[in-house]
């Protein structure tokens, strides 16, 4: 906020001096006269609006677009095919072409649909996703609004999604859509409970709802990460958070609202063109948001996550390598893990071209080099941005990997998981964390 106030003061000063320098008979004089009488609060509001929309537009749109590209490449690799690689380098610009295509498609509204609600529904989803981004700290100085009730705000705003989905399903005048919407309402409202409780645990430990405070708490590297802060409890809370968040954004194995083999396409069956596209932008933005919140609340946020050299090497090698693998070589790395039986998820493994050994060595070298560099440069804001984005994208990748591997749950099994497993488990964890805090103070 201080930066903005300074910027606005500077702007007003510049405006004033420019007006003074104008000659008496200039036709612009009345115009600038009016501009000079605009109070500082209005300029502040305008500048906040502009900078916020700049950040949102310049971050969310590319993130959502890039995620569709990553999703297609990951899916391609998992399914032993290639994925999009035609438009732009390695198919990176495919999402722009897709967007143009969607915009040029017919915007069809079915007969008997509630036209107003039908048009309104996608905006609720977009609104929910975009508003959530407003308080996410992307890096040093890169946060639109650092509010002191960040977590509460996030939980509240992300619930807008369920209204959008319900509206979409209800207004489509289609029974499959309606079923999807009902499933979604039940699912999202239920999973808010374990999700909220799992986020309460970091909040308890830090003693603040502010995302900035959560970030600051984890500034001392790996060992101060909140996922390790209260023994097993935060560790469990992290996984519960992640799985509940999967249910929140309707991704496999909880993609019941849009189960394409059961409900045709669920709540968005009747949508076409850019309205359908908006649903997807919201979905991918929300996926990134999951990663973002997980990173901020449990995994150190944008802070340099390293306190010592071995961990420095490990963590950054992991992030760097994983990112490269994800984008260009798909989950071959992950598949090599999956060859061991009994891994948590049944892993997709196929005989995909594996890395050649020199390439691995070069990557290893590069990642060590870059991680040392990062350590040195860690006060530079762009580095913190990179750290945050890589961590969050790691989760986006995990979500995609799960999607292309697992079947989906049935409605009752999903509810069982929420109310009979996760909710009691989170009660235990919240209690446990409280006791842990008492004990560790003593």
């Amino acid at each position, binding site marked *: 906020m201080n930066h903005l106030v300074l910027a606005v003061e500077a702007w007003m000063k510049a405006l004033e001096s420019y007006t003074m320098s104008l000659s008496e008979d200039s036709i612009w004089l009345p115009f600038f006269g009016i501009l000079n009488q605009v109070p500082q609060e209005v300029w502040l509001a305008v500048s906040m609006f502009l900078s916020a929309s700049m950040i949102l537009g310049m971050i969310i749109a590319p993130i959502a677009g890039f995620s569709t590209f990553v999703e297609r490449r990951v899916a391609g690799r*998992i*399914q*032993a*095919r290639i994925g999009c690689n035609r438009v732009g380098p390695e198919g990176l610009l495919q999402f722009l072409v897709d967007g143009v295509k969607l915009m040029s498609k017919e915007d069809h509204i079915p007969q008997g649909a509630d036209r107003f609600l039908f048009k309104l529904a996608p905006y609720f989803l977009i609104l929910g996703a975009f508003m959530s981004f407003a308080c996410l700290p992307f890096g040093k100085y890169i946060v639109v609004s650092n509010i002191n009730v960040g977590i509460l705000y996030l939980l509240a705003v992300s619930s807008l999604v369920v209204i959008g989905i319900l509206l979409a399903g209800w207004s489509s005048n289609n*029974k*499959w859509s309606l*079923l999807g919407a*009902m*499933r979604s309402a039940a699912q999202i409202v239920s999973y808010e409970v374990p999700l909220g409780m799992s986020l309460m645990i970091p909040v308890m430990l830090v003693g603040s709802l502010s995302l900035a405070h959560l970030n600051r708490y984890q500034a001392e590297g790996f060992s101060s990460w909140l996922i390790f802060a209260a023994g097993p409890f935060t560790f469990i809370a992290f996984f519960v958070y992640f799985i509940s968040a999967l249910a929140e954004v309707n991704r*496999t*194995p909880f*993609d*019941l609202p849009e*189960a*394409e*083999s*059961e*409900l*045709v396409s669920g709540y968005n069956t009747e949508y076409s063109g850019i309205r359908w596209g908006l649903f997807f932008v919201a979905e991918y933005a929300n996926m990134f948001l999951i990663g973002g919140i997980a990173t901020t609340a449990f995994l150190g946020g944008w802070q340099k996550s390293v306190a010592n050299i071995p961990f420095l090497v490990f963590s950054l090698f992991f992030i760097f390598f994983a990112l490269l693998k994800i984008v260009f070589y798909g989950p071959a790395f992950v598949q090599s893990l999956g060859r061991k*039986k009994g891994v948590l998820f*049944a*892993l*997709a*493994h*196929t005989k995909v071209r594996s890395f050649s050994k020199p390439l691995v060595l070069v990557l290893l070298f590069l990642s060590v080099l870059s991680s040392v560099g990062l350590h040195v440069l860690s006060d530079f804001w762009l580095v913190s941005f990179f750290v945050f984005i890589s961590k969050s994208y790691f989760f986006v990748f995990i979500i995609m990997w799960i999607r*292309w*591997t*697992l*079947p*989906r*749950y*049935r*409605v*009752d*099994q999903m509810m069982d998981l929420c109310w009979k497993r996760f909710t009691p488990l989170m009660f235990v964890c919240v209690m446990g964390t409280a006791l842990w805090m008492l004990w560790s103070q003593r």
Partner: protein
Amino acid sequence: MSSIQIQHFDDEMEINMGPQHPSTHGVLRFRTLTDGELVRKAIPEIGYLHRSIEKIAEMVEYHGFMPYTDRVDYVAAMTANHGYALSVEKLLSTEVPKRAQYLRMIADELCRIASHLISVGTFPMDLGAVTPFVYALREREKINDLIESLCGARLTYNYVRIGGVSFDMPDGFAQRVSAFLDQFEPLMNEFDDLISSNNIFIDRLGGLCPISKELAIAYGLVGPNLRASGMEWDLRKHLPYAAYDEVDFDIPVGDGRCGQIGDCFDRYWVRIAEIRESVKILRQCLVQIPEGEIQAKVPKTIKPPMGQSYAAVEAARGEMGYFVISDASKNAYRVKIRTGSFSAMSIIESQSKGLMIADLVALIASLDVVAPEVDR
């Protein structure tokens, strides 16, 4: 269409599932009466893929009907060819050369693997996992390549002739088949790792819609669906045709490994096990196949003596029988085709009561209903 009267309750919603619906694999239609997510009843409506194949049989000559049999079951067309040929050969009392019989077996078993791959591939897809389908189809493509080199076609083969087969094996065919089998068998283990041992998959299917042995027999279920219910019945073993009595294989039977006997998982597992048995049969056939003729002497225009015959083969979806009546003219008087999917379709209505919509999809997928077989 509405010949069935449905009693309506106030709190009931009628949903139309199909004929264009992602999980019906073709053009099946179910009128689904639901109470929210709960299915009260799913009433199959058939006839969307009816092509009058049985009527066509009365209009064309005996040889000329063979290409139409491909369309009875285009997922595994070889067995459909084979059954018709067997029935007409029985009318003619023709002795088929040994080599032709073995070639038919090789073609049948390749086709059975291909068909079961579609079945076990689309099953997880109906439960939400798309990837196994792609793996299954990748292997099916290789089988299609093999069959293409055998008879020149990839989907509707028209390979079996009355009295033999149309082409002998091309050079190196046996080596290519065994090379394929060598790389295919370990892949089935990978497939098991990926999906058969997946917890969600087992949770969804274990104990779902168990069909008892008695019920399965009462509804006339055949093939893998019947064997999954615990009934050991396989035409290849119990009423052997071609040279199936000369090869050694087991009949996989549902054992309720993840729930009850005859549940959806058993129906899935029986197919997986049958793929392995088919691999075993293929290996033996490739070794045992004798030299010799591939076509018995059969006249260009067949005029069988007056009479009737029924011959059945164990197709991928169970007993596929052709009942042929001859009036000693050059066309058949009547051909009736008995297919497995038709009876599988009939059991859905009684089994769908009280299921979730998601389970209904799983039930349809587990019965491996293929639309062209239902309507013909």
